[in-house]
């Protein structure tokens, strides 16, 4: 009744909400219901309602297959490497920029550092493929430094370094924005007070700058942890090939390949559901923790 009264009071708002709600029902909640296909032998003809029910068969198949360990291992390896190398670099970059006195130099480096972020993922992957080919720019550099000449993207042991380094190249500048903002928010008087107490540049960094950005760093770190199991498929699909599956194939790219290339709809929906459940759990946990550390949380 209360609901009807609210409709009566705000008819315009409810009319405005109809298309928005319709969107979320059709493209978010119906697919959620569509997860039943993970427990079926889905056929396009049978649809969600009339396909044969097979229970946990697909999950058992996945857990028993060689791909279970491999895709989880690759997902975690890429996530962790990306965290270990990709997370601190923007912070260091921001700290370095912060020490620069020359305004124009700082501005130039900053502007240039955002540049790679605006190149589309397809083009970035095109650049990677070109530069790491046997006559590519990066390969030439490696050869000049005494390395071997080969097509690096085609080698399983080089996939992860290439993936991580190119991610760093694209993201350093953009990811440093938030730290630069945190840095500019630090009270200048703190530096003056520290200088009066005889603190040099290093001690100022240690005792004023780092504590000043610590909360930002902690929150971003916790939120990063929440997406540990969700390595995006786009860049993986663009870069991997049969030679590099063993180090490159992550859960989401496996879902794509099984489902949309090999048409094992139900099986890959099951793998996708498994991944979603872990992702959701991690997100909830990381948000709980982040809410504890600060007022910042996603929901």
């Amino acid at each position, binding site marked *: 009744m209360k609901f009807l009264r609210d409709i009566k009071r*705000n008819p315009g708002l409810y009319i405005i909400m109809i298309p928005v709600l319709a969107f979320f029902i059709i493209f978010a909640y119906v697919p959620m219901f569509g997860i039943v296909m993970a427990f079926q032998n889905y056929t396009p003809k049978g649809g969600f309602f009339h396909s044969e029910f097979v229970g946990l068969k697909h999950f058992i198949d996945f857990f028993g297959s060689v791909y279970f360990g491999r895709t989880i291992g690759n997902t975690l390896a890429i996530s962790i490497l990306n965290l270990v190398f990709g997370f601190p670099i923007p912070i260091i970059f921001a700290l370095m920029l912060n020490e620069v006195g020359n305004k124009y130099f700082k501005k130039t480096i900053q502007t240039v550092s955002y540049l790679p972020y605006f190149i589309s*993922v397809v083009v970035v992957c095109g650049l990677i493929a070109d530069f790491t080919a046997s006559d590519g720019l990066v390969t030439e550099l490696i050869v000049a430094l005494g390395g071997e000449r080969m097509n690096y993207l085609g080698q399983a042991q080089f996939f992860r370094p290439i993936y991580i380094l190119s991610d760093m190249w694209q993201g350093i500048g953009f990811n440093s924005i938030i730290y630069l903002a945190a840095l500019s928010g630090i009270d200048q008087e703190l530096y003056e007070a520290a200088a009066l107490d005889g603190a040099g540049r290093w001690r100022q960094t240690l005792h004023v700058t780092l504590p000043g950005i610590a909360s930002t760093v902690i929150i971003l770190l916790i939120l990063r942890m929440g997406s540990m199991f969700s390595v995006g498929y786009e860049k993986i699909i663009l870069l991997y090939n049969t030679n590099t599956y063993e180090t490159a194939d992550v859960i989401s790219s496996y879902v794509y390949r099984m489902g949309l290339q090999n048409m094992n709809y139900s099986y890959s929906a099951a793998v996708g559901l498994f991944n979603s459940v872990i992702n959701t759990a991690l997100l909830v946990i990381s948000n709980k923790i982040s809410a504890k550390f600060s007022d910042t949380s996603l929901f």
Partner: protein
Amino acid sequence: MFLVILYILLGIMGLIFIVPVWHVVMASFSEARLLASNTGVVLLPLGTPSIGGYKIVLTAPGIISGYGNTAFYVIVGTVISMLLTIMGAYALSRKGFEYRNVFMLILSFTMLFNGGMIPTYMVVRNLGLYNSRWAVIIPSAISVFNLIILRTAFQEVPASLEESAKLDGANEFTIMFRIIVPLAKASIAVVVLYYAVGIWNSWFPAMIYLKDRDKFPLQLILRETLLVNDSSMIASSADAQNATNLDRKLVKYCTIVVGTLPIMCFYPFIQKYFTKGVMIGAVKG
């Protein structure tokens, strides 16, 4: 001493960001023959600067239609996305809307959990959107993240403005588009850019939902040329049959430049709003 090292390190980082891009641009104006046998960085066009590569790229089928399609997807997609997002954000920002938190929960939950790639694909197919241009636009029309950005901005508009408009007999649509939206211009601009850049970069939905090449967005065409090693583009150009391998590299670089140029033209503008967006997003969380 410390400062010298700092400047040198930052300078090197700057070069790492810019040199690959510079190399591509300069190489794209080079002579195909010299480029094919070149090793190392191209700092200036090799041989006489030429636009031969661009002639091949721009006359090849695909790039032009890809551009046209992408323009359509970006413009129509952004308009639809903005309309829906503004509507949702507006309704959910009204304090008099008693059930707004329930609806917000329904929307936010989709950020946390979703059906996944395969069930979503099936739903889009069952709706008859397979091989339709709408499949690229509609299923990803609203981003909850962007909706929250706008909702926050709309909440900050003083309620007194809305009340006086209501007294004057304005309906919700008038209030939304005449009062609230103009007062939240900065956030609107940020969200427009997020959507537009997102659609510009998008290729995956087009790859899985579209069959006809003449509907492909630019990014999908770029992928064929740059990553799938499809030489049909070069082979189909009139006089290049025997020069295929010679031209391959040049065509690649020209394709990259042609495919990245528009976003780079908007880059200074975009950069400003993107950095602003990062801050809005950060405040929201």
